[in-house]
């Protein structure tokens, strides 16, 4: 399997506190992986580093076939290369309608002068309608995003990622604050997406991760504790100690 993203020996520290220590990680095309770990394990920082929000002290992050180093790139450049990100707390544009949110994230020319004169073609609208159906929000597409429920916002954000059409999605706690039914729906949405693009899911909820049925990496204190199938890692003693044991 070809690698899409390779994180190579990355470290970062804040005020002397090492948030990530010599971390290496990789993911292939159309692969679904999950990352778990206790609070403060460095999960969010890990995502920050990949998406360019935080610059690591050392290490490399290589992307795609051409092995482009992402460290020197800005957030927007990285996003344009095909990495989408969903935040832990759902961040949608609350003053806009659901459909406007999706139009905003839709993959198109981002040059301001082009954007100024950009119009929505029929094909654009059709693809958005399809996404709306995928994330179960088609019926309420004209509602203001600030008014919908927490779970729906999570879906909307995933929908925005889809509309961005990335090669890799980083999804931070997609199931937080969801009802059990919504969780199951989310699992199927994610599985569905992973057919066409790679996904890294960061989760707390073991049950949710189990349902995803994918490779799992356990982070602790900024480095990888264990990696493998969910059954494999749940038997690892160290993992039980730092994570499950609590």
């Amino acid at each position, binding site marked *: 399997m070809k690698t899409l993203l390779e994180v190579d020996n990355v470290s970062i520290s804040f005020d002397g506190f090492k948030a990530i220590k010599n971390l290496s990680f990789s993911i292939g095309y159309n692969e679904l992986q999950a990352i778990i770990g206790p609070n403060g394990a460095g999960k969010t920082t890990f995502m920050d580093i990949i998406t360019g929000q935080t610059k690591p002290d050392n290490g490399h992050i290589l992307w795609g076939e051409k092995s482009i180093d992402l460290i020197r790139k800005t957030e927007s*450049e990285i*996003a*344009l290369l095909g990495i989408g990100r969903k935040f832990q707390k759902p961040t949608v*544009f609350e003053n806009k309608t659901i459909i*406007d949110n999706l*139009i905003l994230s839709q993959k198109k020319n981002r040059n301001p002068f082009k954007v*100024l004169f*950009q119009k929505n073609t029929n094909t654009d609208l059709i693809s958005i309608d399809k996404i709306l159906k995928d994330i179960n929000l088609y019926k309420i597409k004209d509602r203001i995003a600030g008014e919908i429920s927490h779970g729906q916002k999570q879906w909307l954000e995933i929908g925005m990622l889809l509309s961005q059409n990335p090669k890799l999605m980083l999804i931070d706690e997609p199931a937080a604050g969801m009802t059990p039914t919504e969780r199951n729906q989310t699992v199927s949405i994610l599985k569905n997406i992973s057919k066409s693009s790679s996904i890294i899911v960061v989760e707390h909820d073991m049950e949710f991760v189990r349902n995803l049925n994918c490779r799992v990496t356990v982070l602790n204190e900024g480095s990888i504790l264990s990696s493998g199938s969910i059954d494999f890692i749940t038997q690892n003693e160290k993992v039980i100690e730092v994570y499950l044991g609590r």
Partner: protein
Amino acid sequence: MITDINKSVKKHSLIFLITIFLFTLLITFLSEPFGINFISTSFVKVLGKTLCLCIAAIAMDVVWGYCGILSLGHFAFFGLGGYMIGMWLMYERTSIIVLNSLDGSQLPFTEIELQEAIGNQIFGVVGGTEIPLIWTFADNLYFQIIFVILIPGLLAFIFGWLAFRSRVTGVYLSILTQAMTLALSLYLFQNDSGLRGNNGLSGLQNIPHLENLSQSTISILFLWLSSIGLIFSFVIFNYIIQSKFGSVITAIRDNETRLRFFGYNVEIYKLFIFVITAIITGLAGAIYYPQAGIINPAEIAPIASIYLAVWVAIGGRGKLYGAILGAASVSLLSSWFTGGNAPNIPLGFFTIEWVNWWTVFLGIGFVAITIFSKGGLIGMLNTLLVKIK
């Protein structure tokens, strides 16, 4: 919203165009030179200036209300626009006077003599005679009009590029913009700046080559010019905010970090908005100061820009109409109260003299509106209309 831009843009622009046109026409018919002489020239001038302030206010609204950049330095661009056009007005007027006075001499004057005489007339009051380098093109109206656009745009570009690139946001950016306008105004206060220091450029209402027209006619001309300016900038800004670009900048306002992860180069969008609003503000200044008659560095002191923000807030930010309403109502009321027209209120033990108390009430008004009505006056009007319906 984004889905049916064209219709919406056209509708809004058309309504606005008609309203302003009718308003200007009405004023013209009520005015002294073209109508029934019900409105004084001085009030026509106040209205013309108010329209220019409205232009600055909608620019401010776009940059702040829509894009979320609270610029406390936009009046710097307004002033620069005024200075650029003021240079031509002053130079041209003076050179006409000088040419007339040199007519009497026996030998024809040399270029150097002419320059010296003009320099003495313009810079005599600040103790100089030389015409500074920056006045090189002051004799050419077209160049100066280009500068009206170019100089504020350039300043906005340089400042914006520096500020946005290093991701200074929010309160910091506001303070930085304030520092920018303070630096510019302090610079212009110096006589060495070549723009007559604290005196600034004066007598701008006397338009060269239009000496035969009375000020009342000129005031109507400028009223129309201001109206056209307002319509022009409204149409531009209305298009921008209703287009997908507008959707992007409101997204920047709401969460610029999120937007970055969708691949938008937020800094360029901000810079674009900052520069275009600066240019429009500069143009507004170029129409404003020939009506005001004098421009000097105090005009671009930080407080002027704060007032600009306050107008927008009072009118209702995030709505172009709001900005216009805010700028027009506050500046007109201000001019009315300080003009000694408002009757004093005797309370028996104490008389409220508006000249002294108007600012106090204005200040309290700001506070009340910021706390109780986020939508400003236009928001209050909307709620009122909804209730009536």
